[in-house]
């Protein structure tokens, strides 16, 4: 029993989902506003924690605006009481109280460094030697070669000095970078060690574990996001989302509730919070969203905001529930332990974080998801369109295609480069901003800040301590400053100066009142442009999605318009006498002319008696009814013959005129049929003339039935309704009269290379699916199928002829040479983005040369693609490569070999070459397959190997591979004729050392595609969707088709295993005996009926046995 509180918050979830939907609709706006919030809070929080952008004060004079307070803090203060000779070190606060003393001096220690080329130190800087000339300084009280001490009441040293030899000296930051890094590392290490030593080991263990869990959580986030298809962007977005929540919460606690959380509390507490909240829900939302995207086709009207809305509805409940619980817990803790300030403040922070996390997830993260989806959809739609064009689905000229491909190739390259460039630039910019703000030395300050390390004590120089200054009667305070380094001016400084000047110039320019306004204006323009671009791309996506259904929609619209107009006009004629103020008069008027043209021998049967108002809905309903009635009347061909057809229609000449004027679609069906049967309108032109594919099919059926004098097509025995013929035309079939339904069964789950599939099979052979299903069961029990794609290349073998054998031979040798191969490859590859010529194989027969091109074809089966490439390559051979006497006999010279039995496919392979194997445990063979391993192996050798060899088979060393291949091909929109070579298969079985069965199928020529051909039809496409291999693979062209080939081979494996087992088990006899026993028949849910009839006489039984044996033999 679960306490299901999640359901109680469903209204809140819905509200959040609406918020997410809004954000998804305007992603750029939301992301921009969120990031602005983030940036503002980030800067405020960082400023708070790092104490007003505290920079390295030791180089304070290098700054144009030195902060003397910070400088004072970094000094070591020595005080000498009146009449005393002892210098005491003072705390900064004590020293500050004495700052107004008249005898307060700053002792500035200046150190001069020179550039030494022969220095052995790791850095190129060393301290000055005796020969160096140093600049003259005022107020010098002590000089020790490169060390000079100045005593001043106000610290003031020049930024640059010039020595007598003309050399310039520049005040530089403290120390050398390398030393500083070393120092940073050392100080970090020392602090860490001292912290560890002062802490209890168990505390360290707890904090250490928490941090390790954080690392694991982040790693898991990236891994999970990677799994669902986002390598970087969504993981980063998720972390940014949480960071936004954190910084806004910190800002809220610091400036709104005034309950700041110390850095130490954050360091100790945050890891626990990060692990507890985790990123699971964000990952689930992303998974849902991207999963939905993978499932939707271009024809669906699922928008990104809708998907995001659904994602929040589906996955957001538990997210909100957990965060609400957390908020309750933290608020409760705040109230309960209000006197424990650290705990209270931390709990307030956590409750803010939880709240903002929900807020940002419903806005920022949703917007990012939507944007990701938009980009993916745009990418996918473009890829599909291009791929379809390449496969010849949308007719385009070769030049156009070629041009488009070149452009797209370049643009793809550019876009990839641009994406990486932008990613890199953003990262560098982010780091740059931080480094610039903090200075390169920020880290040591940060460490000092966190660990409260006091500034190092600077000892008082010897010359002061040992000086013979007489005892004074006043208190003297000397603030010894950290060492200030001067360095000789060099090229580095000049570059630095240039950069600083440039930056300063920019900062001044930006802060200018006019320029700043212009910049803001430009920013707004840029934002608006981005939004417009996104909207434009959305329009493009919608256009692409609508393109596939455009014709259908148009024709449907036209049909309804026609229906409406014809009915409205009839109604109008009636109603005009009573009331001419019609709401739809404009429609009727516009259509009236058409009606007049086509004549009005129609629709006078019914007149509605409803007067007065013209309710459109009501009239529509009436019109629909009427239209159907008219259609039915129009479809009545019971008494119609070719001879008397004209009695039902207008004169043929009038119809011809209307047809010529492009008004054929306004004719009645019988009139169109009349035109067809009289040979005035060709059958193939019906779709074009009628502008409605379904109506064209219907008219064609009527015309054919009259022409063939058969009424079969007038009935609906061959169905034609409810089918998307727009996809068929120009791609799948011509002269369409309907579609042939084939039963589709399903087998599975079948585990293929760790993934479980349900595979559809279209067949009319009973028992085939059941047989394959048994095979699946056995294979799964053994661990599934392991498959390997050994070769992938579609082939086309044109036949060319030369005037002489000599020339033919020379061409063969040239094509076989590296030069020839490379030249042809280059030309061939230029015709497509996916086609990459792998090899050219040649064969000579007399002066006939056969050239077998083998190429990759992406995810398309690829015959169109390869044909285009072959034609182009042959043209180039004739025009440019010196084979102008070559005569192309045929682009396909049967050396491919396509859809014909041929040894070359069996030996060389064609399409995808797959080897699949499975280990079936002994007991599974016995229990599931009801056979035994030894019998199976023996049967396989006898039947599939020896038997086929005796029959002189080529590629037929299997039991019934073609059965499975064809069934799968039909269900998945593959070319069924290619089952000839696709069914080439050798089935091998062995007994393993453990006594298990090792079965494998090797299929060298599986020809499949997930794009184009029958796959563009919705039913077949949906089956491919079910397998997750529809369309082009987003990242790895050809991967989907390769996977489909593996699936085909695996199904064959299942079928082979099952059938061979049944044969080996001798179920044939058993089956006959079953018939003999005459069991009562049982059939459930359309499954195959049990074989036993109630009574079979002996004569029938004998006939059955003989027939069965005959069947098996055959």
């Amino acid at each position, binding site marked *: *029993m679960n*306490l299901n509180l999640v359901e109680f918050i469903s209204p809140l979830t819905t509200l959040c989902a609406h918020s997410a939907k809004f954000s998804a609709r305007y992603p750029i706006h939301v992301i921009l506003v969120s990031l602005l919030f983030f940036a503002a809070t980030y800067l405020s929080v960082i400023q708070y924690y790092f104490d007003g952008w505290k920079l390295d004060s030791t180089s304070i004079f290098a700054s144009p605006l030195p902060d003397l307070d910070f400088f004072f803090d970094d000094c070591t203060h020595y005080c000498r009481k009146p009449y005393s000779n002892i210098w005491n070190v003072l705390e900064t606060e004590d020293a500050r109280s004495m700052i107004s003393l008249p005898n307060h001096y700053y002792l500035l220690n200046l150190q001069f460094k020179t550039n030494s080329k022969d220095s052995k130190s790791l850095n190129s800087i060393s301290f000055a030697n005796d020969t160096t000339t140093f600049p003259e300084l005022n107020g010098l009280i002590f000089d020790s070669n490169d060390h000079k001490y100045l005593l001043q009441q106000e610290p003031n040293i020049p930024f640059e000095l010039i020595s007598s030899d003309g050399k310039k000296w520049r005040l530089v930051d403290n120390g050398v970078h390398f030393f500083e890094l070393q120092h940073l590392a050392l100080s970090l290490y020392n602090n860490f060690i001292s912290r560890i030593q002062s802490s209890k080991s168990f505390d360290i263990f707890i904090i250490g574990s928490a941090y390790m*869990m954080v690392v694991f959580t982040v790693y898991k986030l990236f891994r999970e996001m990677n799994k669902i298809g986002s390598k970087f962007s969504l993981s980063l977005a998720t972390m940014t989302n949480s960071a936004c929540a954190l910084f806004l919460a910190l800002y809220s606690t610091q400036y709104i509730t005034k309950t700041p959380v110390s850095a130490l509390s954050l360091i100790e507490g945050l890891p*626990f919070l990060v692990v507890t909240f985790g990123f699971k829900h964000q990952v689930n939302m992303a998974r849902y969203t991207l999963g939905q995207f993978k*499932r939707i086709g271009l024809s669906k009207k699922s928008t990104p905001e809708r998907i995001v809305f659904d994602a929040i509805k589906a996955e957001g409940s538990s997210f909100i529930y*957990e965060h609400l619980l957390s908020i309750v817990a933290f608020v409760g803790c705040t109230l309960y332990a209000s006197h424990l300030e650290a705990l209270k403040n931390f709990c307030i922070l956590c409750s803010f974080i939880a709240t903002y996390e929900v807020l940002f997830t419903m806005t920022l993260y949703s917007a990012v998801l939507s944007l990701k989806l938009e980009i993916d959809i745009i990418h996918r739609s473009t890829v599909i369109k291009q791929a379809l064009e390449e496969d010849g689905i949308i007719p385009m000229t070769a030049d156009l295609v070629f041009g488009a491909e070149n452009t797209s190739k370049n643009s793809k390259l550019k876009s990839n480069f641009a994406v990486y460039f932008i990613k890199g630039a953003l990262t560098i910019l982010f780091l740059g901003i931080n480094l610039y703000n903090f200075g390169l030395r920020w880290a040591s300050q940060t460490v000092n800040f966190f660990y409260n390390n006091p500034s190092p004590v600077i000892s008082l120089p010897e010359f002061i301590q040992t000086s013979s200054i007489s005892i004074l009667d006043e208190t003297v305070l000397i603030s010894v400053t950290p060492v200030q380094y001067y360095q000789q001016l060099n090229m580095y400084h000049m570059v630095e100066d240039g950069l600083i000047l440039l930056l300063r110039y920019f900062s001044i320019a930006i802060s200018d009142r006019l320029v700043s306004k212009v910049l803001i204006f430009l920013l707004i323009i840029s934002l608006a442009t981005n939004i417009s671009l996104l909207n434009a791309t959305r329009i493009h996506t919608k256009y692409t999605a609508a393109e596939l259904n455009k014709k259908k929609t148009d024709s449907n619209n036209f049909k309804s318009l026609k229906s409406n107009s014809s009915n409205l006009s009839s109604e109008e004629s009636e109603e005009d006498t009573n009331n001419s103020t019609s709401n739809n008069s404009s429609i009727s008027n516009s259509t009236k002319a058409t009606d007049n043209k086509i004549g009005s021998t129609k629709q006078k049967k019914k007149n509605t008696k409803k007067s007065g108002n013209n309710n459109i809905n009501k009239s529509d309903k009436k019109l629909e009814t009427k239209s159907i009635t008219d259609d039915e009347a129009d479809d009545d061909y019971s008494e119609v013959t070719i001879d008397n057809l004209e009695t039902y229609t207008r004169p043929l000449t009038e119809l011809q005129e209307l047809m010529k004027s492009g008004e054929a679609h306004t004719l009645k069906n019988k009139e169109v049929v009349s035109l067809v049967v009289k040979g005035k309108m060709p059958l193939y032109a019906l779709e074009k003339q009628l502008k409605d594919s379904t109506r064209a099919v219907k008219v064609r059926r009527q015309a054919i039935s009259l022409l063939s004098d058969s009424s079969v097509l007038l009935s609906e025995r061959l169905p034609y309704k409810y089918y998307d013929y727009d996809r068929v035309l120009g791609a799948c079939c011509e002269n369409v009269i309907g579609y042939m339904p084939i039963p589709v069964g399903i087998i*599975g789950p079948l585990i293929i290379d760790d993934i*479980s599939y349900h595979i559809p099979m279209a067949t009319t052979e009973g028992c085939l699916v059941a*047989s394959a299903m048994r095979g699946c069961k056995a294979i799964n029990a053994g661990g599934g199928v392991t498959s390997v794609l050994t070769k992938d290349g579609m082939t086309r073998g044109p036949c060319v002829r030369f005037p002489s054998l000599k020339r033919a031979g020379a061409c063969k040798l040239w094509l076989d040479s590296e030069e020839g191969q490379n030249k042809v490859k280059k030309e061939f590859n230029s015709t497509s983005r996916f086609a990459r010529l792998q090899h050219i194989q040649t064969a000579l027969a007399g002066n006939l040369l056969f050239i077998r091109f083998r190429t990759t074809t992406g995810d398309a089966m690829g015959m169109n693609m390869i044909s285009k490439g072959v034609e182009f390559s042959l043209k180039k051979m004739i025009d440019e490569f010196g084979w102008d006497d070559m005569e192309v006999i045929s682009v396909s010279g049967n050396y491919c070999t396509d859809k014909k039995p041929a040894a070359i496919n069996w030996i060389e392979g064609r399409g995808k070459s797959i080897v699949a194997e499975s280990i079936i445990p002994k007991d599974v063979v016995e229990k599931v397959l009801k056979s035994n391993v030894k019998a199976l192996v023996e049967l396989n050798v006898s039947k599939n190997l020896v038997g086929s060899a005796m029959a002189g088979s080529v590629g037929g060393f299997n039991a019934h591979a073609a059965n499975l291949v064809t069934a799968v091909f039909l269900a998945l929109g593959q070319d069924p004729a290619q089952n000839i070579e696709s069914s080439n298969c050798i089935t091998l079985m062995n007994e393993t050392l453990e006594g298990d069965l090792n079965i494998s199928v090797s299929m060298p020529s599986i020809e499949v595609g997930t794009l184009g051909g029958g796959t563009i039809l919705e039913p077949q496409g949906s089956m491919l969707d079910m397998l997750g291999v529809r369309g082009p693979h987003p990242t790895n062209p050809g991967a989907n088709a390769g996977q489909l080939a593996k699936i085909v081979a695996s199904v064959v494996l299942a079928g082979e295993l099952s059938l061979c087992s049944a044969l080996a088990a001798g179920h044939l006899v058993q089956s006959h005996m079953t018939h003999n026993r005459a069991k009562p028949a049982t059939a459930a849910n359309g499954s195959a009926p049990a074989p036993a009839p109630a009574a079979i006489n002996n004569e029938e039984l004998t006939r059955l046995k003989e027939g069965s044996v005959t069947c098996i033999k055959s």
Partner: protein
Amino acid sequence: MKDTNLSKTNYTQQSRDSINNLTKPTLYSIYDDDITKTASNDLYDTINMKSNKNSLFGDAPSSSSTSLLINSSSHNLHASTTDQLWNSFLKLLILSIFGILYHELSIQLYDNHDLKSGLTSKPLNLGVTLAQSLTLGIIPKWVSYGFEGIFFGLLIPCIDTLFHIKIKKHTYSNTSILKSCNVLLGVTYGIRKLEWSSSLQASGAWALLNIILWLFFDGTISMFLSCGVIGICCSTVCWILMDWKSEFGQLLYFVDFYFLGLLLFGQLGRYLFKA
């Protein structure tokens, strides 16, 4: 009804004709009668069983019901007895390790008032004493702590099995275990480090937090009752052991610690044996 019967009769008749006239596909005559019964749910059971087995160190399957792809192992799915034994051993080993770590945690739990170091380990030590006395002191203490881990880990799955309690499998994953461990460590850290006014205050806060954590991680009544009963039992035993002199704050600590502990072990048990 009559029509239905009639149609059934016709169907049977047609079937018979089909067989008699040998229009029935050849394949039927090759296979046995059960061939059409292969498509049973045991196929899914096999796969699910193996998926669960593989999720021993992986995540629970996605809650998304729309996915048709089920991840599984490439290894031999035919689970042999040796495999099952090995898996069970691994699961018990994990529980044992958690048991030993839990004992260590109980030793390290203290606050700035009445809860002294090692106090919360008293019930665990009692179990060890019992185990050692039963085995005549053969087994070392750490093994006993391991056994206690196994006991805690198996308790909730056993209760689920006994009372036929259905759980949402996707609730339990390695992430949820990680979160539970994280929370347990976090609470321990908070109890140790914060300057509480009294032990009662700390234990009271923890008790309230426990309820939220139960809702956060699990939300099943069976878990709540089991954790509560175990917590109260431990507290009572300690009260008796300490001669009825314990402060209420101390006793509440026992309830808290063992409630949260069993919540962790319950999740772990359900993850390993149920999900």
